[in-house]
């Protein structure tokens, strides 16, 4: 029995220090190389999927029997014999594939790269590129901006709801958010249209700008465009906000229970720092994936909302293309939607790498 009951082991510990497990692996320069490698790997994957998507877009229509010209001719043939001249005219208009499949593929790739998607059937003689480039800004501004606003606002409200769990700051946004998002898009759109547009006459009921305005970049026109975009924007905001609030609130509640949040509190960090830098900073990560998907979907527009408000965006264009069997327009739009989903996912991947050091390894 020695008298050093207090701490008979402390001294021997010194020699061992941290001969423990894992050494400090890579040095500082290794981290930069690893980051570059991470981005390169994601970029490579992006290019590969892009090529696959473009190729599938080429192959799919060719797997279907017949050509668009055949379909048009068959329709005419029901009403009586088709003259050779008509046949030639239709084939000239719709195009008949020439050369073998590889030559077609090369021509197709060339067209994709030069954004030459031919002439629209419905809006003849406008080219597909012209149509898309006119519609795209409206959709990008309307759906894109609103999606970003909804994400930011919803995330903030979600953080607040989780942090003040059980108070009115939690119940009010959570309940009203899930209530509003339970309505279908078109129903909310119709309600707003009826009251704000028709009964109270606060906002225009259709179009992207007034009948007398011509599209340019003057303040007058931009103000008019915003005025017209207000109701459709509000519709999208109301119906999508609840999802973001709930998503963020739920992940945030589980991170609040994590040990690093308790430890941060035990270390006396300010509540705001604990909530944002510790809890919310980690809780937002899984939500970024859904945000990426939502952003990718922006280019497809919001068909229902654009249709109800007669808003000339990509969604409206797509609706017209489908109802009128406008193949060139459809093909170009599908390609564009695929592309934007891929780009959005790529950006989220990179962002994820920046925000979460664990993914970089």
């Amino acid at each position, binding site marked *: *029995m*020695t008298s050093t*009951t*207090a*701490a*008979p*082991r*402390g*001294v*021997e*510990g*010194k020699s*061992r*220090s*941290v*001969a*423990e*497990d*894992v050494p*400090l*692996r890579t040095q*500082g320069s290794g981290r930069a190389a690893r980051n570059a*490698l991470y981005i390169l790997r994601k970029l490579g994957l992006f290019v590969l999927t892009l090529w696959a998507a473009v190729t599938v877009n080429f192959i799919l229509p060719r797997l279907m029997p017949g050509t668009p010209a055949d379909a048009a001719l068959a329709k005419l043939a029901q009403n009586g014999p088709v003259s050779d001249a008509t046949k030639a005219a239709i084939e000239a208009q719709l195009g008949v594939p020439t050369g073998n499949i590889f030559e077609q593929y090369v021509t197709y790739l060339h067209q994709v790269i030069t954004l030459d998607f031919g002439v629209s059937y419905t809006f003849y003689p406008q080219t597909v590129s012209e149509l898309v480039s006119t519609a795209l800004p409206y959709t990008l501004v309307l759906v894109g901006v609103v999606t970003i606003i909804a994400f930011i606002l919803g995330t903030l409200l979600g953080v607040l709801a989780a942090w003040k769990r059980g108070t009115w700051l939690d119940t009010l946004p959570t309940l009203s958010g899930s209530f509003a998002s339970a309505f279908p898009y078109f129903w909310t759109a119709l309600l707003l249209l009826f009251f704000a547009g028709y009964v109270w006459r606060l906002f225009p009921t259709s179009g992207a700008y007034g009948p007398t305005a011509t599209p340019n970049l003057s303040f007058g026109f931009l103000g008019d465009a915003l005025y017209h975009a207000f109701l459709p924007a509000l519709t999208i905001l109301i119906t999508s906000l609840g999802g973001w609030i709930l998503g963020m609130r739920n992940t945030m509640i589980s991170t609040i229970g*994590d*040990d*690093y949040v*308790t*430890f*941060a*509190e*035990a*270390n*006396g*960090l*300010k*509540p705001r*720092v604990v909530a944002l*830098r*510790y809890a919310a*900073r*980690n809780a937002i*990560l899984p939500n970024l994936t859904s945000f990426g998907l939502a952003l990718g979907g922006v280019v497809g527009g919001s068909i229902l909302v654009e249709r109800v408000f007669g808003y000339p965006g990509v969604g409206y264009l797509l609706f017209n293309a489908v109802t009128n069997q406008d193949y060139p327009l459809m093909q170009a739009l599908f390609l564009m939607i695929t592309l934007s989903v891929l780009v959005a996912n790529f950006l989220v991947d990179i962002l994820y790498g920046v*925000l*979460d*050091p*664990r993914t970089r*390894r």
Partner: protein
Amino acid sequence: MTDTTVLEVVDLDVDYGTGGGATHAVRNVSFQLAQGEFVGLVGESGSGKSTLGFAIAGLSKPPAVIAKGRILFDGKDIASMSAEELREQRHGGVAMVLQSGMNALNPVRTIRNHFRDIFEAHGHVEKSEWDARAAEMVGKVELPPQVLARYPGELSGGMRQRISIALALSLEPQLMVFDEPTTALDVLVQHAVMDTIIELQRRENFTALLISHDLGIVLESAQRVMVMHEGQIVEDAPAHDVLRKPKDEYTKMLLSHYADPRGKVVELPGFEDRAERSKKGASRAATAAHPPTVSPRERRRDQKSIVVENLVKVYPPPRRGESEVRAVDDVSFTLEPGASLALVGASGSGKSTIAKLITAVEKSTSGSVHFGNLDVAKLRRGQFRSLHRDVQMVFQDPYAALNPLHTVEYTLTRPVVNFTKLRGQDARRRVLELLDTVGLSPVEEFAAKLPHQLSGGQRQRVVIARALASDPQVIIADEPVSMLDVSLRAGVLALLEDLREQWGVSMLYITHDLLSARLVTDNIMVLNHGKVVERGETAEVLQHPKDEYTVRLLDAIPNPRKVA
């Protein structure tokens, strides 16, 4: 209250919930801590020790409520402080190190930023001094300054726990509460981290409260020990008094479950020394005062050995640019029918991988495993059943090994139906029989329970009953008692031992706990980085270890008797 008193707890009650349905986690607790004292707080799970620790650190959160009493720190009652007062007193006040230090760091912030957050919150360090101070703090826990640039995910568990100690220390606390600071760590790392804590306390002279379930660790480090049982402090005395003349029955019981595996004679309640027993040729149940847990029965006639030859398992590199991992490296052994063999080693030594290879959960890189004349590696999908009928696993974590949505009866009926021809009433009779075998009676009552209604020891018995359902010849027990309270361990070990002796079930016992290996196995193999570094009779190897690694494992065991 004297001048040197740092903390005074008076008549403290902490409840979970309020009103009639409240449970009293801490009851009528009073004690004082003097400046510079190192005090241990010991108790088993559910004793209220962590609840008490959280209350002292001002971290009690609903449903935990301080129902009565005061916690006076520096003369001020922590319970009546406002949130902001409490936050401010965390500098120079009470700091806490959590049990799961590995998860106590924000995965997306570097270590340097963790320190900056603390300095920023309390403003006790000049901004220009931040990095220098952070480097000084990690130096105190024996880490190099390079760790400051790391993210938590890039550090090992032991390093992360050291970092959280350094973070708590950077608050310049008068009192540090350590809540099970080494429990989640590997044995060898545990030992090193404990040394650092002891060393730091002596050098920095803060007051320390070490909360642990392990009386051994506490007795080795603390000057004074408080024992907690069912919410009350049942013993509060200097460490060597607790060890040599414990007053409380509960403390005596806890102490009786410690023994030095290196001793000539190793006995625990329910276990007479193995060597003595084999001299008499008697079974555990026959020699111990405790009744046998299973009734004897005829041994199966088709008993087979497990023969492992030159087994190798190589895993691909965990990250780019690193070398492959040889988890199991040329291991051979034979497990005879009715024999018991211990596989011991620290985490990462490959002991669990061997279990996976034997049960064909994973495929070996080379070498072979034979069960009788069955080559385990050559089994096809449909043939696993015959192997698994005879070779069953008991897992480490009884909390994760049972589906929380199914009753005990359902859990046990599945393997009975899968592996035997019993159905309906016969299957039910068999389930009840199994429950009786593992000592869970009244059986009808236990059959109807859900896992959350059982204690850890009872759950582990259900897991063992499930393993027995197919009437196996071999049980592979992977750390079967490491998650259980000390007082429950002996019972589960006795059950495993009786199954072997009475039924002839052979056992491969995987553990890092050398004491339990000494109690239930005849032979032992010590593994280090996948290689067998030492093998032989358990009692012989543990008394006269030859390999340096075995010696380190033995040294890492906290043992109160070492102090005496």
